[in-house]
C-alpha cells in the first residue's frame, strides 16, 4: 500500500520535531540558557534563527523548547489515554452504578472549563513538570473516557462479547482482549487530536506564565518572551508559533493515515 503524500509530509515534520527533541543535547549549537549575542539579533550564519529577547540563540531555545513541550504533551496524552480508556471500558462493561458514578464524576469535571480549572490548580500547587503532566492528563482523560465508553457500549452488545461472558471470562479479558482491539481505530484518531490539544494547552499555560518555568525553554514560553518584538517587526515570536502549527497539522495527518490503515487491515471493522 502506497503512503499518500499528506501522510509523508506529516510523518516528515513529526519525525523531525521528535528527533530534534530526543537528540537536543547533541544538535543544539549552544547551551539552553547561554547568552551568546545581542538582543534580537537578526538571522545570521552563527544564529540561524537569530537571537531572542535577552540574546540567547533562538534555534537552541526552539530545540530545547520542543523537547519540553513534546515531552509534557506526550506524557499527558499517554496518561489521559490509559486512564480514560480503561475507566471508559470498565464503565461500559460493568454498567450499573459503577457506570453512573464514573460518568457523573466525569460530567462534573467537564462542566468546569479546563483552562480555568488548570489555572486554579497550578496557582496553588508547585509548578513542576510532574504536576503539569498530571493536571493535563487527568483533565484530558475525561474526553477520552467519554469516547471510549461510547465506543465500548456499542461493542459490549456484540455476540462475541456475550459469548465470552457465557464462557465465564472475567472483565479484564473482556476489556483488553475483546473490546480494546476493536475500539483501537477511533481511539488512535482521537489520540492524534488529543496530543495536539495537549501541545496547545501546555503552550497556553506557558504563555500565561503558569506552565513550564524559566529558564527552562518551551514553545509557549518562547512566544511569551518574544511577544514584544512583534511591535518592532521582529519575527522571533512567530518561529515557535509556526512550530506549534506545523506540529499540530503534521500529527493529525499521520493520525488520519493510521486510521485509514487500521480500518482496512485484515479483520478491520471499517472494512
Amino acid at each position: 500500500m502506497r503512503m499518500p503524500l499528506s501522510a509523508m509530509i506529516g510523518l516528515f515534520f513529526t519525525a523531525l520535531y521528535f528527533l530534534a527533541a530526543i537528540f537536543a543535547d547533541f544538535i543544539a549549537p549552544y547551551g539552553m540558557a547561554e547568552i551568546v549575542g545581542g538582543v534580537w539579533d537578526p538571522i545570521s550564519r552563527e544564529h540561524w534563527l537569530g537571537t531572542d529577547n535577552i540574546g540567547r540563540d533562538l534555534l537552541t531555545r526552539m530545540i530545547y523548547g520542543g523537547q519540553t513541550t513534546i515531552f509534557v504533551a506526550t506524557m499527558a496524552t499517554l496518561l489521559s489515554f490509559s486512564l480514560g480508556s480503561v475507566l471508559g471500558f470498565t464503565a461500559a462493561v460493568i454498567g450499573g452504578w459503577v457506570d453512573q458514578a464514573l460518568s457523573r464524576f466525569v460530567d462534573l469535571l467537564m462542566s468546569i472549563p479546563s483552562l480555568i480549572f488548570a489555572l486554579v490548580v497550578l496557582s496553588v500547587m508547585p509548578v513542576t513538570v510532574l504536576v503539569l503532566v498530571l493536571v493535563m492528563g487527568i483533565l484530558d482523560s475525561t474526553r477520552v473516557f467519554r469516547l471510549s465508553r461510547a465506543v465500548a457500549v456499542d461493542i459490549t452488545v456484540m455476540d462475541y462479547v456475550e459469548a465470552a461472558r457465557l464462557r465465564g471470562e472475567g472483565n479484564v479479558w473482556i476489556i483488553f482482549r475483546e473490546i480494546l482491539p476493536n475500539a483501537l481505530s477511533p481511539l488512535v484518531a482521537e489520540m492524534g487530536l488529543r496530543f495536539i490539544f495537549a501541545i496547545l494547552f501546555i503552550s497556553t499555560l506557558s504563555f500565561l506564565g503558569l506552565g513550564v518555568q524559566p529558564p527552562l525553554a518551551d514553545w509557549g514560553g518562547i512566544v511569551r518572551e518574544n511577544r514584544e518584538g512583534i511591535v518592532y517587526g521582529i519575527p522571533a515570536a512567530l518561529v515557535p508559533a509556526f512550530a506549534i502549527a506545523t506540529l499540530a497539522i503534521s500529527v493529525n495527518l499521520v493520525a488520519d493515515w493510521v486510521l485509514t490503515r487500521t480500518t482496512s487491515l485484515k479483520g478491520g471493522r471499517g472494512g
Partner: protein
Amino acid sequence: MAETLLEVKNLRIEATAYPPGEPPQEIVIVHDCSFTLEKGRVLGLIGESGAGKSTIGLSAMSYGRGGVRLTGGEVRLNGREIRSAGPGVLRSVRGREVTYVAQSAAAAFNPAKRLMEQVIEATLHHGLMGRAEAEKRAVDLFRQLDLPEPESFGRRYPHQVSGGQLQRAMTALALCPKPDLVVFDEPTTALDVTTQIDVLAAIKRAIQETGVAALYITHDLAVVAQVSDEIMVLRHGRMVEHGTTRQIIEDPQEDYTRALVSVRSIEHEEKASAAPILTVEGVTARYTGLARDVLSEITVEIAPGQTLAVVGESGSGKSTLARAITGLLPPTAGKISFAGRTLTPKLEDRPREDLRELQMIYQMADVAMNPRQTVKTIIGRPLEFYFGLRGRARDERIQELLDEIELGKGFADRYPAELSGGQKQRVCIARALAAKPKLIICDEVTSALDPLVADGILKLLLKLQKDEDVAYLFITHDLATVRAIADSIAVMYQGKVVRYGPKSQVLSPPFDAYTDLLLASVPEMRLGWLEEVIENRRMESAGN
C-alpha cells in the same frame, strides 16, 4: 407470441473490490447474461447470496448499487436501450415504467412521512395522475393487497403498521404509477412464515389483477415457484438454467438446480426418549422495565444426545428461553436443572463446569466472533480457559477440531473476515465443541445461510451429535429444519409452549390452531401450493 417488454443481452456488470490489505481489484459480478421477459410475465431470479440476482434485477432499471457498474451489453425496456442512457432518460423510466420493491420495507420507508404521501410520490412526480386520482388508486391497491381499513390506511406512519403490512404497502407504492415492470427484491425474506404466505398471496393477486410483468428475486425456490411463470437459476454471476417454473421444479437439467430442488431432504430418525439432561420447569421471565412476561411457565426437557427443536415466529420467546437457560436473563420463577444439578439463575454465580457443559452457537456468525482474533485464538481460548491447554497440545487439539468441522489445514491463522458465511458458522461450532459440552444451544444457526450451505451445517451438526453424544436445543422458525433434525419439538407462541412432545407426535394431527397455521405456511416446492393453502383457509373460515 406476446410483446417483449424487457430484453437483456450479454449483460456484464463489474465492481471494484477492496480486499483487506491488498490493492483494489476489478471484479466481474455478472458475466454475459441474456434473457427476455414478455409483457405480463413473472420471471423468478434465484441463487445463493453473491450469485448476482439482485444486481441483475436492478439492471432492469439500469441501476448499479454501491459502486457497481453496468459495463457491457444491452438492457432494452419497451424497445429502448437504457443501459447506457443518461440520467434524464433514466429519471423518466424509473418510477414510471419500472419500479422496485425492496427487501426491508422498514428501512425503505421514510419514518417521518405518512404512507400515502410516499405511495403516491412517484406517480405525482412523473405527473401521471392528479393527487385525488393517485390517492384513489392507492386506496384501490390497498384493498387489492388486503390491507386493513384501506380508506384510512395511508394516513398511518410506517411504524404504526406491521412488517407484513409495510411490505404490502411497498408493493402498492411500486404498483401505483401503473408500471410495466416491477422488480421484487426478496420481498418476503425478512418476514415470518405465517406472514410471508399472506404477503405472497397478496403480491401474486396484485400481479395478476394489474397484469404487470415482474422480476422476482429470492433465494427460496419454493417461494418463487408459487409466483413466477419462468425461473432463471444463477450462480457466481452466470446463468445456470432458465426455463418454465414447471420444468425447473419437476425436471431440472443441471446438477446445481437439482441440488437446489432437493435441498432439505435430510432424514433423521427420532430417538427413543430417555432420562433428561436438561429440565426446564415452569420458567417465567421478563425483561426489566417490561410489564408482561416474555416467557410464562415453560416446561420442557432434553435427553442426552438428542435434539429439542423450539419453533415459533419472531417475538414468540424462543431466544429468550435460550437466554434464561444460559443465565443471561435470570428467570423470575421456575427451576432449571442440568446434568443432575440445579443451575443458579444468574450467569455470574455459575461454576465454570456448568458454563463449560452448556455452550451456545449464534445466528449471525460474523458478530459471534471477534473480528480481531484469528480462528486459532477463537477456538483455542476455550481450550486454554477450561482445560488449561497450552502450546503444542493446544495447537494439536485446534487442528483436531478444525478437521472435525471439515475445514482442514490453513484455516487456523485466518481472520473471520477471510471466511465465507458457512465457514464462519463452522468455526463457531468448533468453538462450542472445544469445551466438550453436554448441551449446545443453537439459536437460528442456519437462518442467515444459503439453503445448500445450511444443509451442510445441519449434516455436520447431526454427525457431531452422533460422534460426541451432545444434545442440542435448536431454536428456529423454519419447520423444514425441524423436520430434518429434531427428536422432540416445542412450538412456542406468545411466550408459551403451545405444543410439545416427540417429533412424530407433534407433527401429526390433530393439530391445535397455531401449529396447523405454522405447518401450512411452510412453502412447499410444488406448483399450485399457494392456491391450495389459500383455498383451504377460505373454506375453513367459511365453515366457522
